[in-house]
C-alpha cells in the first residue's frame, strides 16, 4: 500500500507541482495518475521512490515513511519503468535486466538466470538476451524495461508514461501484457499517463489531476466515465464517455440469435438474407450480401466481454448483425444493436 498524506511539492522556481495530495493506492492494484502536463502526476510518482522529496506532507510505502529510508535502498525495493525504457546502451539485454539483483549482491550467474526467466515472463525470446538495446524495437525495449523493473521481485512498481513513445498498436499490446502480468504477479502499481484511454483501460482506480497539482477525482474508471466529479474531469474524460463507459457494463441479458451460414468457398447463390461465411472450424470469415457478393465482417464480440463489444460488433457489421464468438473464436450467434440497447435501457430502469 502507498499512502500520500497531505503531500505538497513546491519547486525552487516557485511553481507548485503537487498541492495537498491525499490518496491511498491499495496493495495489489493498478492506480493510474492521469492529467494534462503540469498537473503533478510525474512529480507525485517520483516522490514514492524519493527521486523527488516532498516540501511538506508524508509518503508512506507499506506504512513506512519513505523519508526514513536512504534513497538507494528504498529504490532497489521498488520497480521503476520510464518512458523510452532508459535501458543501458552499453549492456546486453540480459545484463540490463539483471541490474537490480546485481546491485543487491546476487552472484552474476544467479542474476542472469533470473533475468532470463523475466525475459520469458514479458514475452521476449531468450536469444534477445544477448543483444544490445539499440538492436531492439521500441516495444521490445519497453518490455525489457518492465522485465528490468521486476527483476528483484519488488512489491511496488512505478511506471512513468512507459508506453507513450510506442505506436498505438504496440501500445495496446503492451497494455494487455501488463494486465496479464498483473493478474499473475499482483503488484502494487502506480502508472502515470496523459492518455485517459490508457488510464481507463488499465487502471483499477484512476486519479485525475488538474494543473497546479490538485486531485480532481479519484475513482474506479467506470465511475469516472459515468459520474465525473466536475466539468474539468468530464472534459478531460472526453466526449464519447457514455459509449466508452459501456466497457464496464457486463453483457448478461444479451440474447444471442442464430444466423444463416455458408461454408467458405462454396458456391454462393443469391438469397434475400445476409449469410455469414464460416470456415471448417466454424470461425466467421465475412458475410455474403443479398446480391451474392462477399464482404468483410465487422468486429467480433467474444461471449462474456463487456457490452461495449456487443454493441460495437452490431454497429460495425455490414449486415447489422453483430457476430458473437466463444473463447476459441468459433461462431456462437449474432446480436442486433437494438437488442443490446434494450438491455442497456432496462439496466437503467
Amino acid at each position: 500500500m502507498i499512502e500520500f498524506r497531505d503531500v505538497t511539492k513546491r519547486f525552487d522556481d516557485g511553481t507548485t507541482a503537487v498541492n495537498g495530495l491525499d490518496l491511498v493506492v491499495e496493495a495489489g492494484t493498478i492506480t493510474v495518475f492521469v492529467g494534462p502536463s503540469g498537473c503533478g502526476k510525474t512529480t507525485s510518482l517520483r516522490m514514492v521512490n524519493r527521486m523527488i522529496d516532498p516540501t511538506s506532507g508524508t509518503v508512506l510505502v507499506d506504512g513506512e515513511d519513505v523519508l526514513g529510508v536512504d534513497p538507494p535502498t528504498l529504490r532497489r525495493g521498488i520497480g521503476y519503468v520510464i518512458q523510452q525504457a532508459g535501458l543501458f546502451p552499453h549492456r546486453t539485454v540480459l545484463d540490463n535486466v539483471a541490474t537490480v539483483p546485481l546491485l543487491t549482491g546476487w552472484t552474476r550467474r544467479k542474476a542472469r538466470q533470473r533475468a532470463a526467466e523475466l525475459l520469458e515472463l514479458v514475452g521476449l525470446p531468450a536469444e534477445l538476451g544477448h543483444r544490445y538495446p539499440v538492436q531492439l524495437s521500441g516495444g521490445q525495449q519497453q518490455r525489457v524495461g518492465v522485465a528490468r523493473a521486476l527483476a528483484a521481485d519488488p512489491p511496488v512498481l512505478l511506471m512513468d508514461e512507459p508506453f507513450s513513445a510506442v505506436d498505438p498498436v504496440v501500445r495496446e499490446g503492451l497494455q494487455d501484457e501488463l494486465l496479464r502480468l498483473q493478474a499473475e504477479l499482483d503488484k502494487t502499481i502506480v502508472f502515470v499517463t496523459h492518455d485517459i484511454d490508457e488510464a481507463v483501460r488499465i487502471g483499477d482506480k484512476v486519479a485525475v489531476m488538474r494543473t497546479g497539482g490538485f486531485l480532481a477525482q479519484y475513482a474506479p474508471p467506470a465511475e469516472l466515465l459515468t459520474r465525473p466529479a466536475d466539468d474539468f474531469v468530464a472534459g478531460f474524460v472526453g466526449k464519447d464517455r457514455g459509449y466508452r463507459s459501456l466497457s464496464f457494463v457486463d453483457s448478461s441479458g444479451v440474447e444471442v440469435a442464430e444466423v444463416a451460414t455458408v461454408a467458405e468457398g462454396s458456391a454462393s447463390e443469391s438469397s434475400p438474407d445476409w449469410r455469414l461465411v464460416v470456415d471448417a472450424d466454424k470461425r466467421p470469415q465475412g458475410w455474403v450480401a443479398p446480391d451474392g457478393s462477399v464482404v468483410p465482417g465487422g468486429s467480433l464480440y467474444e461471449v462474456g466481454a463487456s457490452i461495449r463489444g456487443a454493441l460495437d460488433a452490431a454497429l460495425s457489421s455490414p449486415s447489422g448483425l453483430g457476430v458473437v464468438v466463444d473463447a476459441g473464436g468459433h461462431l456462437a450467434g449474432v446480436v442486433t444493436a437494438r437488442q443490446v440497447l434494450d438491455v442497456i435501457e432496462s439496466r437503467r430502469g
Partner: protein
Amino acid sequence: MIFADAFAWLLDPVNWSGGKSIPVRVGIHLLYCLGAVLGASLIAVPLGLYVGHTGRGGVVLVGGSNALRALPTLGLVTFLYLIAGGGTVGVLIGLIVLAVPPILAGAYAGIQDVDRGVVDAARGMGMTGSQRLWRVEVPNALPLLVGGLRNATLQVVATASVAAYVGIETLGRPLLDGLRVLDYGQFVGGAILIAVLAVVLDVVLAGVGRLVVPAGLRLSAAPAGRTRSRRTQRGRREEPVPVESGGSTA
C-alpha cells in the same frame, strides 16, 4: 626539389646513428608526448568526470579551459624555462597545459551527453552516485573521452617540437637546425617525421578506442546500426529483429 632533399636527409645513414639520430629524437619526442598526455589526463579526466557527474561548475570549467587554450605554448615554455631554469619541467608543464582542454572537454561532454533517461533509470533503480558514475556514465562517455585523448595527443605531438628551443632533442631539432642553415631537406624531413608519428599514434589510439568502447555503443554509433537488421558484437549478420506484432508474442 625539397621533397627529394627531405628523403635524402631521411635516408642518410648518418642520421640514423648516434646520440642525435632520428630514432633517439623520435624516442625523446614520444616520451615528452606520453608524459604530457598522461599528466594532463591525471588532471583533466577526474575533473571532467566530477563536473559532468555533479553538473556543478560547468560554466567555470568551460571558461577556464577556453582560457587555457588561449595561452601560446611557445611563450609558456620559454617563460617556464626562464623561471624554472631547466628545460624538462617547463616543457612538460607547457605541453600539459596544451593537452588539458581537449581531454577535459571530452570527459565532461562524454558524461553530460549520456542520455538523461538512462541516468534517471540508473538512479531510480537504486544505484548510488559512484555506482552510477562508474557503471553507467563512464562506459557511455568512453567514445568522447577517447576522442578527447586523441585530440590532445595530436596537438602534443605537433607541439612537442618547441622543446627544441630550450635544447631538448625532440623532433623539433631538425626543424630549427634546418631553418637556421637553410637546409630545407632536413626541415621538411623533420616535419614529415612529426606528421607520420602523429598519424601512427592516432591509429593506435583509435584501436584502443575500439577495444575499450562497449560493443553496445559501437553498434549505435555505426551508421548501419540505425536500420532494422543489425550487426552483433561479433560482426556477423544476425536475423532481422522481429517487428512488434501488437504484443501477442507471449
